[in-house]
C-alpha cells in the first residue's frame, strides 16, 4: 500500500482532453465497424480472450441444469420413452416412403437434367446465452470456426428454421434469429407456391410478410416454407404459419403476420446446416462484391 501525496503539479492532459481523445477513438471504431467491417479480427481476438470467462460464468447454471436432469423422475422418463418409440415407428414408415420418393425424385431430376440437391452436413450446437441486447434477437452458440462453421449458414431446430449464423468466432458464433428486425427469409406458401419475403419484427413470435399485393392468396393458417432462391436456406424447411391477414383497401400492401414454427425464443439446442447451393457461375469478383452487403438489409 502506498501513501503517495497527490500530484499537485503533474496531472497530464485534462479530463476534457482525454474525453475528446477517447470519444473520437470510439466514434472511429463505430464508423469502421458499421460502414467498413474492418474490425472483425479485433472482435474475434477479444471474443477468444472472453471465451473462458464466459464458460466459467455459465458453468454453475449448466451444473444446476444437469442436477435437475439427474433427479427427473423415472415415470417422466418412461412416458417420454414410450412417446419416442411411438414417434420412431411413425418416422420409420415415413422414412421408407422417403427412400422410395428420393429414388423417384433422383430419377425424375436425371430426366430433367437438373443437378441433385446435396443434403449437406449438419453441426449440432448448444445455445450458450441469449437476450442481453434489447435491440437485436440473437443467440450465442458453443460452436465456431474451429468446428467448421461458416458465416451465413442456416440454423434450424427440430421444427423449423431458427435463424442464420451472422458472426463466427473461433469457439463461439452468433446466430441472428428470424425474429430480428434485420433478418429476411425468402419463403413460399406451401398451399399454392406463392413466393414472398418474410421479415422479423423485433418481437418474439411475430413475423411479417413484406410487400404482398392486396389480392394475393394468403389465408390464416397457411404454412410457409423456405423457397431456397436466396441460396442461404435449403428449400422446403418450415419457417412460419400465417396468423393474421389484414386487407386495408387504402393501403398499398396487405398486412400479413405470422408466427415462427420453430421454438425461436426457447430452444437450447439447434442444428447448423452446411448447405452448398447449386449456384450458377458467378460474375467477375468486382461486380459480385458490390451488391452483397445490402442483401440482408434491403432484401426482396
Amino acid at each position, binding site marked *: 500500500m502506498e501513501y503517495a501525496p497527490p500530484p499537485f503539479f503533474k496531472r497530464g492532459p485534462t479530463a476534457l482532453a482525454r474525453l475528446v481523445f477517447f470519444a473520437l477513438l470510439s466514434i472511429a471504431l463505430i464508423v469502421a465497424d458499421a460502414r467498413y467491417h474492418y474490425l472483425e479480427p*479485433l472482435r474475434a481476438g477479444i471474443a477468444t480472450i472472453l471465451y473462458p470467462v464466459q464458460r466459467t460464468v455459465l458453468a454453475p447454471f449448466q451444473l444446476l441444469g444437469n442436477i435437475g436432469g439427474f433427479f427427473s423422475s423415472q415415470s417422466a422418463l418412461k412416458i417420454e420413452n414410450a412417446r419416442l418409440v411411438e414417434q420412431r415407428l411413425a418416422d420409420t414408415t415415413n422414412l421408407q416412403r422417403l427412400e422410395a420418393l428420393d429414388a423417384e425424385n433422383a430419377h425424375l431430376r436425371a430426366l430433367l437434367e437438373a443437378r441433385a440437391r446435396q443434403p449437406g452436413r449438419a453441426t449440432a450446437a448448444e445455445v450458450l446465452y441469449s437476450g442481453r441486447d434489447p435491440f437485436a434477437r440473437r443467440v450465442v452458440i458453443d460452436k465456431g470456426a474451429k468446428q467448421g462453421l461458416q458465416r451465413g449458414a442456416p440454423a434450424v431446430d427440430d421444427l423449423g428454421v431458427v435463424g442464420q449464423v451472422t458472426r463466427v468466432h473461433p469457439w463461439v458464433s452468433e446466430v441472428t434469429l428470424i425474429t430480428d428486425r434485420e433478418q429476411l427469409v425468402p419463403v413460399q406458401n406451401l398451399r399454392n407456391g406463392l413466393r414472398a419475403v418474410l421479415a422479423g419484427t*423485433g418481437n418474439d413470435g411475430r413475423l411479417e410478410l413484406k410487400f404482398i399485393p392486396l389480392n394475393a392468396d394468403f389465408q390464416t393458417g397457411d404454412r410457409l416454407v423456405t423457397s431456397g432462391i436466396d441460396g442461404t436456406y435449403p428449400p422446403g424447411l418450415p419457417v412460419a404459419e400465417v396468423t393474421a391477414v389484414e386487407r386495408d383497401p387504402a393501403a398499398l400492401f396487405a398486412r400479413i403476420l405470422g408466427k415462427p414454427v420453430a421454438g425461436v425464443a426457447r430452444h437450447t439446442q439447434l442444428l447448423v446446416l452446411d448447405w452448398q447451393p447449386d449456384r450458377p457461375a458467378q460474375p467477375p469478383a468486382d461486380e459480385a462484391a458490390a451488391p452483397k452487403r445490402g442483401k440482408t438489409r434491403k432484401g426482396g
Partner: protein
Amino acid sequence: MEARARPPQLILLPVRPAFIVVTLALALALNLLPWSGVWILLKTDFVALAVLYWCVDQPRRVGFFTAWTLGLVMDVANGALFGQHALAYSVLAFAAIVLHRRIQSFPMKHQFWHVLALLLLNQLIVLGLRLANGAQFPGIAYFFPALLGAILWAPLCALMRTPRIPKSDPDQI
C-alpha cells in the same frame, strides 16, 4: 444559522489495486450471466456501475482507459456495434471524474439522483447510437436498468467501503 450535523467521516485505508481489479472483473462476470425470463428485470449494467463507483472514489487510478477497454469488451460480449459502450463508458468516466468531489459531498439520498442521471446518460448514448444505426426504440423498459443501478448505489458504496474501514484497535486480529 446552525451548522448541519454531519456524520463523522472515517479516514479509510488506501484501496489495493487488486481489489479494484477484482471488483471490475466481478462486475463483468455479472454482466455476462445468462439473464433471461423474469430475471432480466433485475439486470442492470454492473460494469457501468462499477466504473462509476471507482471513477468517483479513485479518479486518479481508474479513468478513461479502464472505462473504454471495458466498453469494448462489453460490445464484443453483446455482439453489438463496436465502440458504442466504449463511448458511453468514456462519457460516464468523464462525468464521474469531473463531478467526483461534488458527488462525494452529498448524503446518500442525494447521490441517488446524481447516479441516476449519469446512468441514464450512459443508456441514452447507447440508445442514440443504435437509433442512428437504424434500430427501433425498444420501449420505455429500456431505461429500467438505470433506475435499478441508482437504487443499488447505496448498498454498493457500503459494500465497497467495508474492507477499507480501519480497525479500531491496531493489535486486534
